[in-house]
């Protein structure tokens, strides 16, 4: 419980730092801390493989992408002030969405079954503490425990094979999208360059006249 409180406070603080940082680089560092803390959370939930995936994919791939884009746009020069207060524009839809979300959350919490068989919040007498949730027995060095690579891989390649294959399709779409976006700009730039080169002699003639 103590570990949970410390990690939770750190998670919330780093999330707030991500949102409030003036400089995007500071934001990236706070996000890195956030992902690392989340990986520790996954470890405490006995999901070793996903903790590793969290570090590798998020901290290793996605954050590096962010850092590259910040470098490309020029981190020091793009600091800008906070714009006009936009809370007035969004207050009405925000209230509507918030009320709908609260209704859905309340409904799901009162009607969801908990692992030991009662409603989550509706009946306080059967509310399960963490103590009712079964422990996992782990033998160090042996495969097959809940959350291990063995367990995860078996589920991914047998029961959840179709979602896994569809993931490949999603990644393919992402690759094609990025290539189309980047390719279009280089083609446009090349066209603009040639247009400029063609139009330059005429302009010189005009000036001499």
């Amino acid at each position, binding site marked *: 419980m103590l*570990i949970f409180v410390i990690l939770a406070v750190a998670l919330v603080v780093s999330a707030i730092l991500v949102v409030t940082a003036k400089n995007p680089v500071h934001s990236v560092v706070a996000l890195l801390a956030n992902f690392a803390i989340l990986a520790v959370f996954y470890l405490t939930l006995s999901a070793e493989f996903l903790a590793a995936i969290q570090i590798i994919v998020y901290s290793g791939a996605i954050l590096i992408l962010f850092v590259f*884009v910040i470098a490309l*746009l020029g981190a020091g020069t*793009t600091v800008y002030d906070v714009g006009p207060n936009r809370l007035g524009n969004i207050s009405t839809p925000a209230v509507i969405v918030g009320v709908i979300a609260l209704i859905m959350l309340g409904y799901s919490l009162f009607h969801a079954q908990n692992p030991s068989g009662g409603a989550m919040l509706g009946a306080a007498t059967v509310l399960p503490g963490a103590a009712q949730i079964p422990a*996992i027995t782990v033998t160090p060095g042996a495969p097959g425990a809940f959350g291990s690579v063995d367990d995860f891989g078996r589920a991914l390649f047998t029961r*959840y094979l179709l979602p896994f294959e569809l*993931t490949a399709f999603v990644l393919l779409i992402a690759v094609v999208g990025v290539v189309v976006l980047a390719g279009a700009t280089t083609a446009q730039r090349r066209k603009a360059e040639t247009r400029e080169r063609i139009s330059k002699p005429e302009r010189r003639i005009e000036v001499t006249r």
Partner: protein
Amino acid sequence: MIPVQMSVDPNLYAGLSAIVFFIGALGVVLRRNPLIMLMSIELMWNAANLTFMAYARAWLNNAGHIFTFLVITVAAAEAAIGLAIVVILFRPRPVANVDDVALLKG
């Protein structure tokens, strides 16, 4: 054999992830820097993941792990495309402000 007990109620994880999700949503709504908006979206993905993982552990069902894996994949694809769009839109501009991009408004 070492027994590993879940020491915290899963509902607390859900509450924590709701807080982080809310912070991320505020970031998307209130910040005008496209990069920080994308990072706030990543925060929201991760908050959802935390709930999946907590309830996967509570039910001892690794469907939550699979779904977290899929969410991480989709988040990676989203980050790649989103950052490509950001680069194309804001490379020629002196200031990266999302409000400057209003082409569809005419």
